[in-house]
């Protein structure tokens, strides 16, 4: 039997409240509880509860023949806990049927996969823990924020032990290929990749109630015939969509619930398709080929790229300033800091800063609590400014900034030794406030040491004068500089960047803006080259 694979994204951000600059340093609460509760309650009543009940009924009716999958962000689960425990209960009921697969993602629906592997891992770990806690099963399939995917991200996901990952069947990636097969990751073929059939998915998610669409009104007969009409060799139709499609984006009055209620029966009677979850598919079918995605894609907008979240000056600035804090945050064992750090990473905050929709802002305004991207940016930066003050209060500047950024690849080791070695930078140690200060020093020393031995610190450039630096950088390959500085100490970064030639700087900025991916290997190699040049000059 061929497969229909339903996957629903369930996410709500912790929206920020109006936070003025004069609140900086005085008010440390950032979230609009009232609005968040209001929206959660509204969507719970219009979508989550009725739709969960509908799915539960269908599962009761068809037994194991009807299956769906969900990805719940950690933030939405937090909101269920706080504002809508009834929704959480109904998800638990769905989980108990065994016909629903829950996927892994980042805790705060963040863009961390584009910036920091370590933070990415941390967030995925936190979310899977939460999913396992409630639904009693550890996820084996991964779904990144807004289906963001690239070869590199897939490789990271494979490294974490996931078997399957979902993403968009973007036209510019697939070309003539069909999304209706299983693919695998280009770097690590062990990872299966399922691609969204965006035409059929969007027929439900976006066009269902669009009267100007020639497919309107969409009946289950019509839809199943379209599915049945796909080429006979094709194996799976992946219907991925926002769960809020049901009852929120498409109102109850459009007949969306009736459509879903009638769909399984139509599928069973009119076609040779059945319903499968992603993890079942990865057992059932074999990947046909590798899918090559050198630049990240997503399921957003016509472009299917990252420009809804990153790319304009505001977004990039906010994003970079946020992740500049990563190291400091990790050395803080304050629970509130850890939580705020997570929530501030939520991709929605950057989405609100998008300037793409000046002309046709309607759809996006609906989701956007701010009147303009500028207000979203200023508000976010005000909050970030306060967050930085809190961080600095906990970490006198010299204590933190002296240390090198830790080596991401050593992370698994550190993780395993959490219990025995108190110096682990991982996992904020709760209830350890009293011993915090004693602990801090050994942590620092060790980190400096490991960092030096692992990647090379390039600290020597700090000793060099202007002409020395200029000599060092003359005719150097800018890509080497880019890799070498990838996660270097900010002072080292500054002294090198400020001495780059005009053209070099331009190229460097270009690399930066393109967000060219790199591995630890690249960094080590580049630093070796640079260090060799430094040694040459110094001696």
């Amino acid at each position, binding site marked *: 039997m061929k497969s229909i694979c339903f996957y629903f994204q369930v996410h709500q951000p912790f929206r920020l409240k109006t936070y*003025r*600059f*004069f609140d900086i340093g005085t008010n440390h609460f950032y979230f609009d509880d009232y609005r968040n509760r209001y929206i959660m309650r509204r969507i719970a009543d219009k979508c989550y509860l009725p739709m969960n009940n509908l799915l539960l009924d269908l599962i009761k009716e068809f037994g194991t023949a009807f299956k769906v999958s969900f990805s719940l962000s950690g933030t939405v689960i937090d909101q269920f806990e706080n504002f809508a425990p009834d929704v959480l209960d109904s998800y638990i009921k769905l989980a108990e049927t065994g016909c629903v697969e829950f996927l892994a993602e980042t805790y705060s629906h963040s863009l961390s996969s584009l910036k920091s592997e370590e933070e990415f891992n941390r967030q995925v770990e936190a979310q899977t823990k939460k999913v396992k806690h409630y639904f009693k099963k550890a996820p084996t399939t991964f779904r990144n924020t807004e289906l963001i995917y690239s070869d590199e991200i897939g490789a990271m996901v494979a490294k974490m032990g996931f078997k399957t990952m979902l993403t968009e069947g973007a036209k510019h990636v697939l070309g003539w290929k069909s999304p209706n097969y299983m693919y695998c990751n280009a770097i690590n073929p062990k990872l299966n990749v399922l691609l969204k059939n965006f035409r059929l998915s969007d027929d439900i998610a976006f066009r269902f109630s669009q009267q100007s669409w020639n497919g309107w009104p969409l009946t289950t007969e019509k839809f199943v015939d379209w599915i049945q009409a796909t080429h006979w060799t094709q194996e799976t139709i992946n219907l991925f969509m926002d769960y809020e499609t049901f009852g929120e984006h498409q109102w109850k009055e459009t007949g969306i619930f009736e459509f879903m209620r009638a769909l399984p029966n139509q599928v069973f009677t009119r076609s040779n398709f059945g319903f499968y979850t992603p993890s079942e598919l990865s057992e059932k079918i074999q990947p046909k080929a590798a899918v090559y995605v050198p630049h990240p894609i997503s399921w957003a907008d016509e472009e299917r790229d990252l420009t809804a979240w990153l790319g304009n*000056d*505001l977004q990039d600035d906010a994003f970079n300033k946020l992740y500049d804090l990563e190291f400091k945050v990790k050395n803080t064992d304050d629970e509130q800091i850890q939580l705020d750090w997570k929530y501030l990473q939520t991709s929605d905050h950057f989405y609100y800063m998008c300037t793409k929709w000046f002309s046709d802002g309607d759809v996006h305004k609906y989701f956007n609590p701010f009147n303009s991207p*500028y207000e979203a940016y*200023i508000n976010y930066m*005000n909050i970030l*400014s306060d967050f930085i003050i809190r961080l600095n209060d906990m970490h006198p500047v010299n204590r933190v900034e002296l240390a090198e950024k830790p080596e991401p690849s050593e992370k698994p080791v550190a993780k395993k030794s959490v219990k025995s070695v108190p110096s682990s930078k991982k996992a904020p140690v709760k209830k350890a406030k009293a011993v915090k200060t004693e602990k801090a020093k050994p942590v620092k020393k060790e980190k400096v040491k490991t960092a030096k031995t692992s990647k090379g610190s390039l600290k020597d450039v700090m000793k060099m004068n202007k002409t020395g630096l200029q000599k060092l950088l003359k005719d150097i390959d800018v890509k080497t500089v880019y890799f070498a500085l990838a996660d270097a100490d900010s002072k080292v970064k500054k002294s090198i960047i400020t001495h780059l030639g005009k053209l070099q700087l331009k190229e460097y900025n270009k690399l930066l803006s393109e967000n060219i991916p790199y591995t630890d290997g690249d960094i080590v190699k580049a630093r070796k080259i640079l260090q060799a040049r430094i040694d040459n000059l110094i001696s």
Partner: protein
Amino acid sequence: MKVLMFGWEFPPHITGGLGTACFGLTKGLLKNGVEVLFVVPRSYGDEDQQAIRLINASDVSIDFTNKAYQEYWKQLTYIEVGSNLIPYVGEEEFEKMTSENLLDKTEEHSGVFSKQYVFSGKYGKNLMEEVTRYALVASTIAGSQQFDVIHAHDWLTYPAGMTAKKVSGKPLVVHMHATEFDRSGENINQNVYDIERKGMEAADAVITVSNYTRDIVIDRYGINPAKVFTVHNAVEHSSSDADMVIKRNVKEKVVTFLGRVTFQKGPDYFVEAAKRVIEKDKNVRFVMAGSGDMLHRMILRVAQLGISTHFHFTGFLQGEEVDKMFLLSDVYVMPSVSEPFGISPLEAMRSNVPVVISKQSGVSEVLKYALKIDFWDIDAMADAIYGLLHYDALSVMFRKHGKAEVENLKWDSASSKIKDVYYKVVH
């Protein structure tokens, strides 16, 4: 297509934005192939006449023996007007004008069969009287010239436009650059309001400089929406945009208000916002450039708030001083309570200064690269200023795109829309 246009001022003799706007749109019309007969009271002789044929209203003879004229003479009545009505003028300007009017009082040269009127050409104490005389002259011009449509700018010329329409039977278009509510808030001058309303009612089409003004015209004057068209103003692209280099004497960031210090420009909100910013950040200086009837109150308020070491008043600025002020500024704020259009933020943006503008302005309808706030929302205004000063990505973005955005607001395209309105009323 030939248009008979009634204005009140024309460069270089301008007291407000009206003259500049008239000049820009006239040039645009000529480029669009429209002929313009522009009537202004009193020609100084040094107006830029490259583009248009200027008819000096003062040089038009009015023949008493002409029956048509006598008929209009009967229909016109003088309205005495309170001296508080002096639109568009700053304090100094007001003094200059009133003294000028004393010396240079509107005169009547009597001849045997004709009278020639001399107009002061500026808004003054005898404003209503002059408005009415202007209408008289209009009837003569309308009777002797050939044209297809009449276009009258702001209420001062509406009686002239109406008279011309009656004499010639040609359609009338009136242009609302500002309403009485923009000038006076809720304390409107009833005489002016009546002239505005009558003018718009008599007109075949009304052009407003923004949707904001269009709404006022419809809601407050009860004008039929079907004949009200918005044509946003544009900016004149002066060729003397050479990069002026200026040395900054202060190391602090500078936030500027530039305009008449009067109720409708919202200077008081600017002062209150300044207080909030200075409390948090001492590295900012605020400048209020301009003059007006609220200036003394503002100085007093700044003293009261104890921010006078960071808040400066320059008085009235002109020409190059304005350019210099922009060059010294890091943020430009236009907190207008009611602004039909508002050209000054465009000038700031052209000088690469990021702007904060009130939503109660027409210009906010055409700008993307600007922060827009409600004039009364002091917290939001302060936050916008603070954001522009502290979070560089924002000012970088505004500088990158703002200038191009302004340069895309061309009189040519605005005038082509005006031409469309002409065709609507002619056919």
